[in-house]
């Protein structure tokens, strides 16, 4: 156990700080939710140039080309968070498609797509879930039928965030209807401008359209735009989902929230008494603080395991479930501590934090459900982590 980084890493930290001191003012004020602004793209290019994002992606594909070093990545994150600066763009193209292409794409696909995606010039959306295929994703029904050099796609996707602003989609389609459900799926990449694609915003309980539905009617896509071959889509998707789950349940987000609630409870008063002086709310805050610390130290443990290429086993499998739940409970405490003010929303008078706590409380429920529901996570923990048997398939009637 040694929580010091050592001289090599402290020197690297000094470099990161020097960058922040010199260039920090160029950081975009607000990251566009869907399409990176020109300011954001400039910032992104600067970060890539200095090895502060896309760090381990080879130079030939537009990255910085450094050896993977998880501690350096963490130091970058620590310093940017401490300075209140946005990190590189973390959209689905960069977080999910790029690692997938690096692992499984053809040389031509890598050359064509990775660099502009990294620079924020090409925005992607993910076409996985369907109305009838959520937790049972492999049952998806969107069809791609061969026609000469093309596939013709018909079907519907749902929960497609940024589809309205995306240039491209990475999409799971059924190309082999006769094969077993996991073996008949292919992973296609194609333009959202292709004729026959319709995007309809999907308004959620938050009041915002954070997702979309995407409809495909006779959408023609060249067969060469498949990743890793026909029938390999399920395998490719699992490689991608692994990257997504790593993003959900980040303990540093919980740490930031805890600090915000602590500040709020020191400022807000009820009957003239600060909320922090109210023993019941304070007890809830301290109880959640212990959980936040536990998940942060848990993150350090996983980081160490990853740096040593060790499999942390069940410790890794619990992160999405516990992390998302913890974030949700933090939002709940803020709402409860605010009492009646806690229900105010949109642009109401007396609103606090632009209504962020109610928005988070509702949106977090989406994160608890998305990326593998809490119940699917529990199946994974019990089956892969504890070695418990799978639910037997019902006998065919």
């Amino acid at each position, binding site marked *: *156990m*040694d*929580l*010091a*980084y*050592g001289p090599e*890493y402290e020197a690297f930290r000094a470099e990161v700080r020097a960058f922040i001191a010199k260039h920090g003012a160029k950081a975009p004020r607000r990251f566009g939710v869907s399409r990176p602004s020109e300011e954001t793209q400039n910032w992104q290019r600067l970060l890539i140039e200095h090895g502060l994002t896309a760090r381990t992606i080879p130079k030939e594909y537009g990255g910085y080309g450094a050896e993977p070093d998880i*501690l350096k990545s*963490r130091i970058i994150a620590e310093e940017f968070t401490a300075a209140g600066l946005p990190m590189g763009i973390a959209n689905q193209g960069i977080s999910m498609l790029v690692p997938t292409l690096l692992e499984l794409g053809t040389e031509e696909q890598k050359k064509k797509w990775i660099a502009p995606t990294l620079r924020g010039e090409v925005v992607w959306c993910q076409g996985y879930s369907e109305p009838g295929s959520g937790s049972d994703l492999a049952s998806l029904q969107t069809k791609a039928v061969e026609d000469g050099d093309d596939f013709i796609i018909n079907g519907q996707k749902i929960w497609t965030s940024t589809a309205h602003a995306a240039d491209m989609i990475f999409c799971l389609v059924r190309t082999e209807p006769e094969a077993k459900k996991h073996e008949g799926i292919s992973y296609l990449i194609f333009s959202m401008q292709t004729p026959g694609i319709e995007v309809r915003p999907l308004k959620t309980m938050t009041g915002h359209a954070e997702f979309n539905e995407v409809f495909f009617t006779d959408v023609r896509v060249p067969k060469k735009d498949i990743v890793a071959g026909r029938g390999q889509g399920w395998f490719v998707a699992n490689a991608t989902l692994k990257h997504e789950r790593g993003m959900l349940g980040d303990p540093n987000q919980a740490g930031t929230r805890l600090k915000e609630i602590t500040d709020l409870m020191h400022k807000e008063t009820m009957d003239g008494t600060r909320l*922090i*002086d109210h*023993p019941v709310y*304070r*007890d809830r*805050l*301290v*109880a959640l*603080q*212990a*959980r936040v*610390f*536990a*998940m942060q*130290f*848990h993150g*350090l*443990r996983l*980081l*160490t*395991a990853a*740096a*040593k290429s060790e499999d942390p086993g*069940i*410790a890794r499998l*619990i992160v999405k*479930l*516990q992390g998302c739940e913890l974030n949700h409970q933090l939002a709940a405490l803020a709402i409860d501590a605010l009492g009646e003010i806690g229900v105010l929303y949109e642009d109401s008078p007396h609103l606090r934090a632009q209504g962020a706590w109610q928005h988070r409380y509702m949106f977090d429920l989406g994160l608890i459900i998305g990326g593998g529901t809490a*119940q699917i*996570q*529990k*199946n994974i*923990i*019990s*089956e892969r*982590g*504890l*070695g*418990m*048997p*799978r*639910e*037997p398939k019902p006998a065919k009637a």
Partner: protein
Amino acid sequence: MEFGLSEDQKLLQESIGRTLEKVSPLERVRKVAEEHAAYAGDVWQALAGLGVAGMLIAEEHGGMGMGLLDAALASEMLGRHVAPAPFVATAVMAPIALAGAGSTAQQAAWLPKLASGEAIAGVAVSERAAGAREGAGVAVSGGKLTGTALFALDAAGADIFIVADKTGGLHLVKGDAKGLTRIALTSIDLTRPLGELRFDNVEAEPLNAGDAGAALKRMVDAGRVMLAADTLGAGWAMIEKAVAYAGERKQFGRVIGSFQAVKHMCAEMAAELEPCRSLVWYAAHAFDTMPDEASLMAAHAKALTSETGRFVARTATEVHGGMGFTDLVGLHYWFKRIGLNRQMLGSPERVRHEAAVLQGWAAD
């Protein structure tokens, strides 16, 4: 940056686990409990043989000079095997008190004997660590002790006691001192007897060579981390037993472990308990290397692991169905071990309040 155990630490923990598996199987635990014995001498000797008694005692006094993380790994194994042996007072809290506030002579007289396991030290600090209940409290007059100390740890068979008085002063009292009455308290957990000490003008040596207030705080912090680690070990043992039982027990023509209702109970237990390991490790490491954080992290580790332990103890019992409720499978030894750990040295509510005070969020 490395947040994990060294190879030596893994080996140490494995060897303690293997030894306990051999010398302290459930039948042995059951015998000690049913006889209301002070502790199992053979189990204690086996642990002492591995150096567990002297883990935290400096090498110059015959100990191993290890850190609190090492002790936490040992404590986790003791909880895992519901070991009927003294530990938290004699091997952790008393050595810390003697090292922090004992005179050279006191250290020389007792640390080597504690390190070898030849002598056992009990610790009576409940009134300071968990709050004084009615009638409890020890007063000092003319250097002699009068009053009652409740919930002394490792009390049965102790040769000496480290006692905190009402003002937080620490005293060393011989087990056979005149005027000292030792009463056994029967708790749910028969693997670790608790004691009541009644003092009637009892001769005591003050521990005041160092800062006694600081020593008291250190020994309580360390004790809390140990109890958290004990619950971590006992809790994981319960999860594993629940998973194993669910893999064998059949109802409706299939093992109950294939029902999602049962699987999800097991997943929830694991998901809640595993982050406690990271917190316990951090708290133990902070105790040795980050004094500013030590008390806060010890409080958090104690509170969170106690709360999680309670959830695991009841859920694992439910997974066992009716069998979990019987004496037959002995699951209750773990249930009760976790139950005792929760109440000793400060309940979750009490230590969370302390955590708030430490951060300036509440008045003392």
